């Protein structure tokens, strides 16, 4: 069993080796599974770390590798982090050893390429809004699917009525939609849709300015990705692995087995260091600092 100092040594060695093999600085953004979410404070922390590395908007990194591990967080913060990364680097390649979900996927939209470790995945950028009162948080996708359900109910019932020889209609969808508004709240529904428009705008900006900047058909590519990750896929926990991400049109690659093992080892060490209380320490009961470190 390694001591914490030995683990840190191993981490530094692995990260430096990845950076050497890839041929560019490596920035690790690790958010611990429990209570580690992307927040506004991280924007300044990432900026500071890149400046400490001696880089700036005037002295950009040619090719920056970003090893990202997160369940997600605030999409506004995700967008701002993406822009900070691009302020410091001419080209950004994301390395995903295990997963980058939601706001993490949004950050990846600023990359020139995304490299997946074995069984790694991204997730759709769904919007979840906290519910007041006794209800659980609701995902916007659930509302979309409920609306689809209401429409299907109406057409199925009308079809059944027609088939049975009745010349009448139904307003079943009205009742279903009224019940949804009653449960979620009318103003809250507005918040959901407004947030999705904003997140869609962030994703569009990043895709057009960075990921598909050089592509001749960038508008089409952008539209396909936005439609899929914001509207088509069913929930936050939907896994967009290498195969699905390729079919969506994202510029993705699979890491070699050696690279995949190395990046997964980095995550494993970071988990152990977190459990040892050396990194990602508690800032409050439900908030852990991320691990941010640039290896040049």
């Amino acid at each position, binding site marked *: 069993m390694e001591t914490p100092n030995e683990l*840190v040594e191993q*981490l*530094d060695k692995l990260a430096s080796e990845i950076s050497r093999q890839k041929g560019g600085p490596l920035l690790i953004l690790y958010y611990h599974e429990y209570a580690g979410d992307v*927040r*506004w*404070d991280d924007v*300044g*922390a990432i900026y*500071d*770390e890149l*400046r*400490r*590395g*001696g880089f*700036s908007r005037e002295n950009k990194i040619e090719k920056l590798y970003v090893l990202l591990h997160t369940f997600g967080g*605030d999409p*506004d913060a995700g967008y701002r982090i993406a822009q900070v990364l691009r302020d410091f680097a001419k080209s950004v390649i994301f390395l995903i050893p295990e997963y980058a979900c939601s706001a993490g996927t949004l950050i990846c939209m600023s990359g020139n390429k995304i490299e997946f470790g074995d069984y790694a995945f991204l997730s759709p950028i769904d919007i979840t809004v906290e519910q007041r009162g006794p209800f659980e948080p609701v995902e916007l996708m659930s509302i979309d699917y409920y609306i689809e359900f209401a429409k299907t109910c109406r057409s199925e019932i009308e079809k059944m009525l027609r088939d049975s020889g009745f010349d009448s209609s139904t307003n079943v969808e009205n009742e279903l939609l009224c019940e949804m508004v009653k449960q979620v709240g009318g103003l809250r529904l507005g918040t959901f849709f407004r947030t999705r428009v904003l997140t869609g705008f962030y994703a569009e900006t990043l895709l057009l300015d960075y990921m598909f900047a050089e592509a001749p058909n960038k508008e089409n590519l952008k539209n396909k990705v936005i439609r899929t990750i914001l509207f088509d896929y069913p929930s936050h926990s939907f896994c967009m692995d290498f195969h699905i991400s390729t079919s969506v049109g994202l510029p993705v690659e699979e890491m070699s087995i050696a690279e995949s093992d190395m990046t997964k080892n980095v995550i494993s060490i970071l988990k152990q260091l977190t459990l040892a209380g*050396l*990194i990602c*320490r508690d*800032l*409050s009961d439900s908030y852990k*600092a991320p*691990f*941010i*470190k640039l290896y040049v």
Partner: protein
Amino acid sequence: MSEWFEMSQMVQEKGKKLGTLETQELMHKKYLQELKIRHGMSFEELIQMANDPRKYARRSITKKQENEE
């Protein structure tokens, strides 16, 4: 004051070589400092608080009452 000043200097220092744990320690201090300054509130909450129209409505009502007096 001096602790905060020293930390800001350290953050801004270009090319300063810090070890992995030193970096995390520095960052942890900065996160805590920021939380303290913001009374534990998130940026979103602070923006909402700063732009809460009720605050301004109260102010203009008070001002109107003062003018009337």
